[in-house]
């Protein structure tokens, strides 16, 4: 028996991808590289801010269309 309560597969993957992206963004080399006047680290943080809500919303709508996660 699992020691954890069950999490939706999509949510699990979302957490894994976001965590990996964050780890890569905080690697030392992203702070040294300069792109268009700003360090790559800054651009990666901005990307994270744009894509994380977009993917989360897409997932929620996808799930709603599939009729999962319904509430009383």
């Amino acid at each position, binding site marked *: 028996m699992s020691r954890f309560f069950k999490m939706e597969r999509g949510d699990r993957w979302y957490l894994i991808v976001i965590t990996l992206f964050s780890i890569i963004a*905080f690697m030392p080399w992203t702070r040294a590289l300069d792109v268009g006047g*700003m360090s790559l680290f800054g651009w990666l943080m901005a990307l994270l801010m744009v894509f994380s809500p977009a993917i*989360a919303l897409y997932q929620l709508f996808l799930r709603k269309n599939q009729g999962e996660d319904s509430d009383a």
Partner: protein
Amino acid sequence: MTLERTLVILYLMGCIVIGALASRKVFVSRDEYWVAGRRIGTWVNAMAIMAALASGGSIIGVMGLAYGRGIPYTLSLFAGAVIGFPLASILVAKPLRNFGKFTITDFLAFRYPHPVVRILVPLLIVVSFTVYIVAQMKAAGITAETLLGIPYQQAVTLSAAVFVLYVSIGGMLAITWTDVIQGTLMLVVILGTALAMMAQNGAPTTIIAEATAKAPELGQVANEPLGNYLGLFIIWAAAIPVIPHIVMRVFTAKNSQGARLSLNVAMVVYTIMILAAVMVIVPVGKIAFPNLQDADQIFLEVMNHQFPPLIRGLAVAAVIAAVMSTTDALLLACSSAISHDLLGNYLKKHVTEKVENRINVAVVWVVGGVAMIFAYSPPKLITEFYSAAIGMLSAGLFVPVVAGLWWKGANMVGGIASIVAGVAVYLLVQFSPEFPPLSAILYGLPASAVAMVLFSLLGPPDSKELTLTVERLHR
């Protein structure tokens, strides 16, 4: 000045009227006062969540931080906050909404049923939220001082009196209505300013390239230890799922699907606003005003010198709206920590609901008054100041809440140890001069997690009934 002052006065009066209208409905029951009857729709809740998070820090502070420490440093903080929303949506929104109580303390006291939880958690909330409220009041004070010419202390007193009044009489319903108006105002002013600047100066990439050519430090990773960057990111990522004024908004949603959706929609709106501020307004401001003494003044200087009185008036109203939309939610969460979490059981047994309502109102006034007195001598760089206070909450509450919802092995001993270890290690590191100031969370969170696992293994397991109840929250 007359036009700007008139706009601000109209706005403040509007907030009081909303509070008065809401007061007719909210004193019917505890549900109505604390969570607006749990019938707030998704889009309204999303705007209210965005406004609650987008504080004076998110307008005055975010731009001050970007101006003073560079864009990458600032984005590490706000990317953390944005990541916090999906974490909240995935990890806590559904089970906490299904739990159906009022506060984060309610959940922790249910999950780890020991009297110390009912005392420790609200105390943590009161301390860290008072710091947060002081920072917001500073933002209101310097804005009114710079753009309206009102002395700082008078501006702090006036704004505090208004939001304390409408929160105390209107509860969560007044907060929701005012937050929607305040969120819209903030969005319009920030986006409008950014669009006007882009029309003059080109796309954000062009603006950043031009600004960093003149002031390279704006685009560089500041000379800060990695611990500070990572600390800021993690403080906010871990705070959003457990921070009481956001969690209370989860409880106001009609259902868990609505709670999840509103958190994610709020995140989109918040991202647009922060990126417009940091990647457009700040670089243009840095070119125009390269040597400001107080970095937090950058937005106000831009508005003062580059926009007409009508827009300046709207900008002041927007900053005050940002301050109020967060502070009202913080005040309600703070007063709920005292009158619901700390005194709730006693009050339910010994006084009528009418007297309890009066105590709620009085507590809001006391908390607002204490914060106002502290705000008369404010700290520098408000965003870092309140981030450190919020870090203490993240360190103490994130692990117990998430483990309590997802790990079947979590139990009362582990929960209490986790709260105590997280806060103790956080404070120890925070006040040790040899550690970077915002890195304490990097030690506090792991300490909290280790304590949770170790002490849960040592302590007696939860009853089957409790485990089944938690399991039902996930359905």
